[in-house]
């Protein structure tokens, strides 16, 4: 079995995603434990190869660049075929369990006729197996699973392996797609990236989230103002609010939405339904502002403030601005 590890270097719209650096960092951990090398595979439209240096800086011994005009959009069939064609040379495949990574990992595994370990928060690496921790049951139970198949296919929860600089050669090799990307049966006709200036919930160190306590959709402006005062914050929402159309579904944090663990999570007018707590309870510091002092959110909040969120938010925004100015 090869000790080398293939990392999936995710990109979107010609830009490298943080998931790419996390995947390379995690792959480095596997390769170092086994005495192997890390090869990162990067797909995109012509020009994507320019990002190879950043992958090298995070621990890629080699960067396999697969450029094709049809990779301007996500093209999972051709991506999976190209990864699968290379897998006989590797003992493991590592990606981050983003929307794209969750799509790719099981298909790479199936193409190799092996199972995969999904959404792992930690890995213990042995010579011929990898043991992972994987939260299940809406985060209420930690499952420990051992993957004994070769290659080991693992997707890691975003944030489980933070990008770590560890410069390696990063020799660039150009690879042709193993299947014609323009002939894929599944075609992505449009990718809407929304407002790319906004931080993604998975990347933001601070998340300000709003719930029904904001009373009306227009009051989300107060949440956005606070996020702007922080400067490194993204805006999230509860399911109640996304179901009512106050915010897009993609903003929903919870059991059935995004699972986040930022450094600071500020819950604004959120009572703390189990569905919501499942998506944010691993945040490092939690602040809750809610008018009902019996609300379950206060049971997990490091700092609770009882009161009307609509009155308190502008004051908090002003104070944060002041603190940031110093």
């Amino acid at each position, binding site marked *: 079995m090869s000790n080398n590890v293939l990392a999936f270097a995710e990109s979107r719209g010609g830009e490298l995603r943080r998931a790419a650096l996390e995947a390379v960092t995690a792959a480095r951990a596997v390769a170092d434990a086994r005495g192997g090398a890390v090869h990162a595979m990067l797909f995109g439209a012509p020009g994507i190869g320019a990002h190879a240096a950043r992958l090298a800086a995070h621990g890629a011994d080699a960067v396999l660049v697969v450029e094709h005009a049809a990779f301007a959009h996500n093209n999972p069939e051709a991506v999976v075929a190209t990864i699968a064609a290379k897998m006989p040379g590797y003992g493991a495949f590592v990606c981050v369990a983003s929307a794209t990574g969750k799509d790719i990992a099981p298909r790479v595994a199936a193409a190799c006729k092996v199972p995969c370990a999904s959404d792992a928060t930690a890995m213990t690496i042995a010579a011929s197996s990898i*043991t992972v921790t994987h939260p299940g049951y809406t985060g209420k139970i930690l499952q420990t699973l051992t993957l004994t198949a070769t290659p080991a296919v693992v997707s890691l929860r975003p944030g489980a392996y933070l990008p770590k600089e560890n410069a390696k050669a990063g020799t660039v090799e150009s690879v042709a797609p193993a299947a014609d990307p323009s002939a894929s049966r*599944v075609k992505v006709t449009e990718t809407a990236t929304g407002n790319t200036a906004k931080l993604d919930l998975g990347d933001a160190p601070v998340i300000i989230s709003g719930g029904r306590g904001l009373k009306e959709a227009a009051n989300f402006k107060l949440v956005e103002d606070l996020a702007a005062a922080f400067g490194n914050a993204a805006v999230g929402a509860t399911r109640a609010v996304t179901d009512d159309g106050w915010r897009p579904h993609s903003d929903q944090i919870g059991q059935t939405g995004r699972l986040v663990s930022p450094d600071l999570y500020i819950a604004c007018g959120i009572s703390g339904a189990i569905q919501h707590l499942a998506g944010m309870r691993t945040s490092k510091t939690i602040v809750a502002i809610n008018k009902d002092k019996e609300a379950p959110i206060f049971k997990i909040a490091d700092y609770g403030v009882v009161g009307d969120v609509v009155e308190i938010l502008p004051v908090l925004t002003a104070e944060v601005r002041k603190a940031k100015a110093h």
Partner: protein
Amino acid sequence: MKIAVRIKRVPDMDVRFKIAPSGKAVDETGLKFDISDFDGYAVEAALQIKEKLNTGEVVVISLGPDVVQETLRKAMSMGADRAVQLKADAVPADSFAIASALAAELKDGAYDIVMFGRMSIDTAHGATGAMTADLLGMPVVNAISKLEFDGRTAKMRRELEGAYELVECALPVVVTIDEGIARPRYPSLKGIMAAKKKPLETKPAQLPALRLALDAMALPAERAAGRIIGEGSAVVPELVRLLKEEAKVL
């Protein structure tokens, strides 16, 4: 349109779980079970397609011990036409093994669409649908929140982080269903009565050797108990001080 939907029986999540003495399962005492959330959306989406076209068949499939028959009956009470149980002592952790058993059942079924929830709400691997598609040689679109048809072409929307993709694929196709597509209906009394007479076939699941094993289950460490620092906007300066000096996040 012939549609298959894989459903899984899972416990209600709104409880405080206990680990069984084996250390490898939840203690099922007092737990209520139902169709896994996303699988429920898939059943509803399949039923709506059939109703809209006014023709076709919806077949629900579940792998597991005999208790899954109850889950299959529930889906039939919602409106599914028939059910298949792939009998196994337990649902393994190895998604490739599950996918192999499902593919063996589905391959000669001439299905136009095979649906899965995008993940089960208990073990939360989200791998079986895509793997089954690969084993069937069918295209797959994961985590869709919209599904429409233009003749034999499925037009779908896939949610990404802060973005979405519009995707097209000719039938037959495997799709995994995200929420937002359709709220599952409650079975009517008529539906519940009718479901008792609908066919439920039981076959042994053809599971290959397992290469992903569940070693242990544990409850995560509890967060320290919450702390209310005060009431009203007067407490905001103190909050900001704590964030800065104690939590060091500002």
